[in-house]
């Protein structure tokens, strides 16, 4: 019986390839209490309002059902993504000092050429390959290389932090009905180890600073400074986020374009459309499907339902992005869409910290790929998906290029 609830079906791996009909059901149902005491919201206007509601906490320790304080105390304290203002603001602003405006306005736009070069290098390994896996050969290595350079993490250590990252991501999966302790405990351990690793790297920068963010974190500290513990939690967050989301954005982008050959052709002939196409991808196939860790700090009313203080509140961003009450023809992929105020990066104070970097990477990557490939086609549709219903995207995306495969464009 429990397995029949909507949230079970949404998180069920069987629906990973196409959760959108379930989201339509969710929007139809409205805000409904699930068996485990959580509430799902899937309509655009309600999600948008909740993301700006100061009474909605991002701190899981505020949850009373289930009481999560005990587990949380065992590991590192939350990074700013899991904190509320004013603490969230303090940490996010300190982190922003070495990432973007007003203190470092040129950091991201200054990476344009470097990202282009990395894309070119990755594409350079393609000729001769009949088949390629967009994930392993392209969409994964690009953001990992970029975030490593940005933070100052040696790319050779990738296998180490990939394992930690997998455990941490598995820990945020809100899969109901499982042993509620096992995966979170592994995640807590992985976070601790990754934090120690990054904390050590940062310490080394103190004596040998470089032009990366870890160096800035331990730098002169004018205008405030992160503590060693905050450096650990923050750099874990940035490394994971830089790792696990952009890969989905790029892969979902390739998949979507290959499913819409006429739009692909349009983008090929009009590259100036790419920035808007990436926004449409963020709406149509967003890399983050839900925000599973909100909690109201007071009883609040959402669309006529009272969500009690302390209850888990899950915001289904990907569902809001397809809400026909907000977007005209929401299930249509339209790279030239006007009025596209999507929730792909969330909204409000927790809106994605790395959004400008993800945008730039996706624009450059998709542009590079479109120009490089001649007549690509999908070998498997739907492709196999990653496990997570939160950070949703293909695990592999096998394609074949007409040029190397000698096939005609279909």
């Amino acid at each position, binding site marked *: 019986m429990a397995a029949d609830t909507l949230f079970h079906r949404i998180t069920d791996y069987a629906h990973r390839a196409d959760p959108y009909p379930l989201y339509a059901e969710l929007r139809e149902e409205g805000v409904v209490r699930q068996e485990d005491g959580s509430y799902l919201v899937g309509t655009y206007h309600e999600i948008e309002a909740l993301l700006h509601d100061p009474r909605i906490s991002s701190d899981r320790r505020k949850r009373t059902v289930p009481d999560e304080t005990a587990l949380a105390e065992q590991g590192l304290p939350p990074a700013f993504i899991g904190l509320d203002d004013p603490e969230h603001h303090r940490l996010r*602003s300190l982190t922003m000092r070495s990432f*973007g*405006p*007003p203190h470092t*306005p*040129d950091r*991201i*736009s200054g990476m344009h050429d470097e990202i282009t070069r990395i894309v070119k290098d990755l594409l350079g390994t393609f000729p001769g390959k009949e088949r390629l896996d967009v994930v392993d050969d392209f969409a994964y290595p690009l953001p990992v290389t970029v975030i490593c350079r940005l933070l100052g993490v040696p790319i050779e250590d990738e296998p180490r932090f990939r394992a930690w990252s997998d455990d941490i991501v598995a820990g945020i999966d809100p899969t109901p009905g499982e042993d509620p302790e096992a995966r979170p405990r592994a995640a807590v351990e992985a976070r601790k180890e990754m934090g120690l690793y990054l904390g050590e790297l940062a310490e080394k920068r103190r004596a040998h600073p470089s032009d990366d963010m870890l160096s800035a974190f331990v730098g002169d500290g004018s205008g405030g400074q992160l503590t060693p513990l905050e450096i650990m939690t923050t750099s874990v967050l940035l490394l994971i986020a830089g790792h696990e989301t952009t890969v989905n954005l790029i892969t979902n982008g390739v998949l979507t374009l290959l499913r819409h050959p006429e739009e692909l052709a349009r983008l090929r002939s009009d590259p*100036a459309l790419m*920035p*808007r196409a*990436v*926004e449409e991808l963020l709406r149509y196939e967003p890399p983050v499907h839900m925000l599973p860790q909100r909690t109201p700090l007071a009883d609040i009313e959402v669309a006529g339902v009272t969500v009690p203080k302390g209850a888990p509140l899950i915001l289904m961003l990907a569902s809001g992005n397809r809400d026909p009450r907000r977007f005209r023809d929401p299930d249509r992929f339209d790279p030239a869409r006007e*009025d*596209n*105020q999507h929730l792909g*990066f969330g*909204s409000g104070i927790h*809106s994605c910290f790395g*959004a*400008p970097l993800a*945008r*730039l990477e996706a*624009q450059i990557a998709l542009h590079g790929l479109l120009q490089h490939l001649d007549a690509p086609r999908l070998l498997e549709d739907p492709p196999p998906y990653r496990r997570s219903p939160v950070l949703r995207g293909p695990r592999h995306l096998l394609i074949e290029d007409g040029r190397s495969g000698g096939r005609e464009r279909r």
Partner: protein
Amino acid sequence: MNVVVDLNRCQGYAQCAFLAPRVFTLHGEEALLYTPAVPEEQQDAVLRAAAACPVQAILVGEEAGADAG
């Protein structure tokens, strides 16, 4: 090409200041300043910034009344 930002809509996400830092700058933590007349070499960056604005507050276009006689 000219640009205007509806600063009533603007919530300070600063995507424009990341993507076109020669045209959009933050004054302090949140107040946005911009160059209304966009220099030629910044036009692509400004279009990128306008597309990325999470609240769609940036209007880019030819200068109004250019046809005024």
